[in-house]
């Protein structure tokens, strides 16, 4: 009992509260419908669940195809130790995106309709097909972890034989739907603020997804190392951060040129809420990571990498929410007098979905061979009381004795 109580941490209690809140909101949503649980309306049909759970969630799960591409297509094998956690994040991310989508759909039981009643002219159709197919591909890419764990050698051999075609298919599908999520907003140029509406949105969505995929890989590696006292692949993560910053520089150069060509660059010095949000996005996504990464003697340590990646990921979230929410707010206010803000139920569901992601990731890392095997080690606490990870196979022979054998 005492041990069980000692294992309760602040974040475990917070996670339990968040999950409970989400469960309650889910009961209201599916028991009484969207009207009772959300602030969505015919004027603002897409709210937090689409903006964050789906559009942002898919981007945050981009580490799977990015790392798979780096290792299997560009043949940079040294990054292989961090492919599995990236694929795990992607697989869980997509599963949670689908959960978020089920909450948002008016008739979630008809989600399979896209398969049968196809509308090939719709961008949503492409997104639906790609998400379904890519989640299947991710399940197969992730399956070796489970098959290894349960020693199913024959099945493992079959999956390994089709790894490369799977990776290629996964990258193709990701490229399609990461950009298609941007394409969704091409049909509402009159509603969006010119900072975020651009004919280049699909390209911007794809490029920023590649960068955030790397950022998420750094974050999850850091948090796993912290939680499970694992060795962090710091040199690899440092290289990922370097690539991430390179991609961000290309991305923001392209966005700058885009603003210039559409003749809206002068708006970035106007005093408005949208301008503040744009600068927040640029600061979090580019300026702060660039600054942190280049702090001498700290930027490239594990903490430096964590804060660099965290700022970038936060900037990415700001970008996606700016596209899906901030850019539309003024239009709704001026034309309908409506201001959308998510209800407690919507917030509770989104927070619970993110929490579930953390919990599932932690369980997977704990029980499945996600991270590479590191050399066995014992961890002794300074209070001299506990040996946290005794290694049962240690030979126990002093050096001189080992030498004699």
């Amino acid at each position, binding site marked *: 009992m005492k041990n069980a109580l000692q294992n309760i941490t602040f974040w475990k209690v917070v996670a339990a509260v968040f999950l409970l809140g989400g469960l309650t909101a889910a009961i209201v949503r599916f028991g009484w419908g969207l009207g009772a649980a959300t602030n969505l309306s015919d004027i603002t049909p897409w709210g937090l669940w689409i903006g964050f759970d789906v559009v942002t969630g898919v981007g945050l799960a981009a580490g799977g195809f990015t790392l798979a591409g780096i290792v299997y297509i560009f043949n940079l094998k040294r990054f292989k130790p961090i492919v599995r956690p990236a694929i795990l994040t992607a697989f869980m991310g997509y599963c949670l995106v689908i959960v978020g989508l089920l909450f948002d759909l008016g008739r979630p039981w008809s989600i399979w309709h896209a398969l049968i009643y196809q509308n090939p002219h719709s961008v949503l159709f492409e997104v639906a097909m790609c998400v379904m197919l890519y989640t299947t591909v991710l399940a197969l890419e992730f399956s070796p972890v489970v098959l290894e764990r349960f020693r199913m050698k024959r099945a493992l051999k079959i999956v390994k034989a089709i790894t490369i075609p799977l990776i290629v298919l996964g990258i193709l599908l990701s490229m399609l739907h990461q950009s298609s999520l941007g394409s969704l907003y091409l049909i509402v140029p009159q509603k969006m603020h010119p900072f975020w509406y651009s004919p280049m949105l699909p390209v911007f969505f794809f490029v920023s997804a590649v960068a955030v995929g790397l950022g998420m890989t750094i974050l999850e590696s850091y948090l796993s190392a912290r939680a499970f006292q694992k060795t962090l692949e710091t040199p690899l993560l440092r290289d990922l951060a370097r690539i991430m910053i390179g991609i961000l520089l290309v991305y923001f150069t392209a966005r700058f040129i885009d603003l210039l060509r559409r003749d809206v660059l002068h708006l970035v010095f106007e005093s408005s809420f949208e301008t503040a949000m744009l600068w927040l996005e640029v600061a979090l996504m580019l300026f702060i990571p660039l600054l942190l990464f280049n702090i001498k003697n700290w930027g490239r340590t594990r903490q430096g990498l964590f804060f660099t990646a965290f700022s970038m990921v936060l900037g990415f*979230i700001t970008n996606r929410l700016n596209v899906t929410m901030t850019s539309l707010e003024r239009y709704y206010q001026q034309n309908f007098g409506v201001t959308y803000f998510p209800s407690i139920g919507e917030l509770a569901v989104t927070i619970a979905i993110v929490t579930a992601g953390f919990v599932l990731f932690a369980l997977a890392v704990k029980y499945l061979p996600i991270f590479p095997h590191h050399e066995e080690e014992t961890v002794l606490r300074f209070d001299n009381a506990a040996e946290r990870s005794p290694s049962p196979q240690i030979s*126990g022979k002093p050096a001189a004795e080992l030498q004699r054998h």
Partner: protein
Amino acid sequence: MVALFVILFVALLLGIDLFIQARSRRYPIMAAAPRTAIAPQARESVRIPKSVFFHPGHTWARMQDGEHLEIGVDDFIQKALGGIDGIELPAAGEFVRQGDPVITLNHEGRKVRLVAPVSGYVRSVNADAVENPGLVSENPYREGWLMMIEPAELAANLSILRVAESAVSWVKEEIKRFRDFLGASMPQPAAVGEAMFEGGAPVAGALEHLDETHLQDFEQQFLR
């Protein structure tokens, strides 16, 4: 407004986490210097990899490619120091003898000297670790290695090194000895606090509380 709300919410969660971590000293950059050398709920721990050979002076050696040994300082000493600001090493080509003080660690203007775990010629030094001593704090056994040595009298040197279970027992004893040493060496009772009598343990950076004389005693008793 929704975007701003989400960002502020995530930033708040990070802030809470930083506060919790700073309290448990997992973010060395965020945490204040320890107020006492021994605390009742000290959570520091030391890692002892199975494949590393430990010298009683808190340095280690690991066979690298059949010909060379990687040399470094152990997790115990870097935790006791609470941080490393600078590292001084012999130049490549120099001969070092087992037990001779050859590694100097600086922390906040104070120096400790550690001995070579084996005798041999220094073939290379880890310039990354010298330039960025934080690597030693992060992982003293991997990225934080310090020198590559071509051993000269390995068979004789190995007799005093400890490995595996023997190393674990030795580190256990060292922690106890360190706790007792701190209790006896503190310049004022406040620096140890009542924690000493409540079963407290050394905190990271406990050596910051020693005056120069006791730091020299520490070197003599623990690093030789």
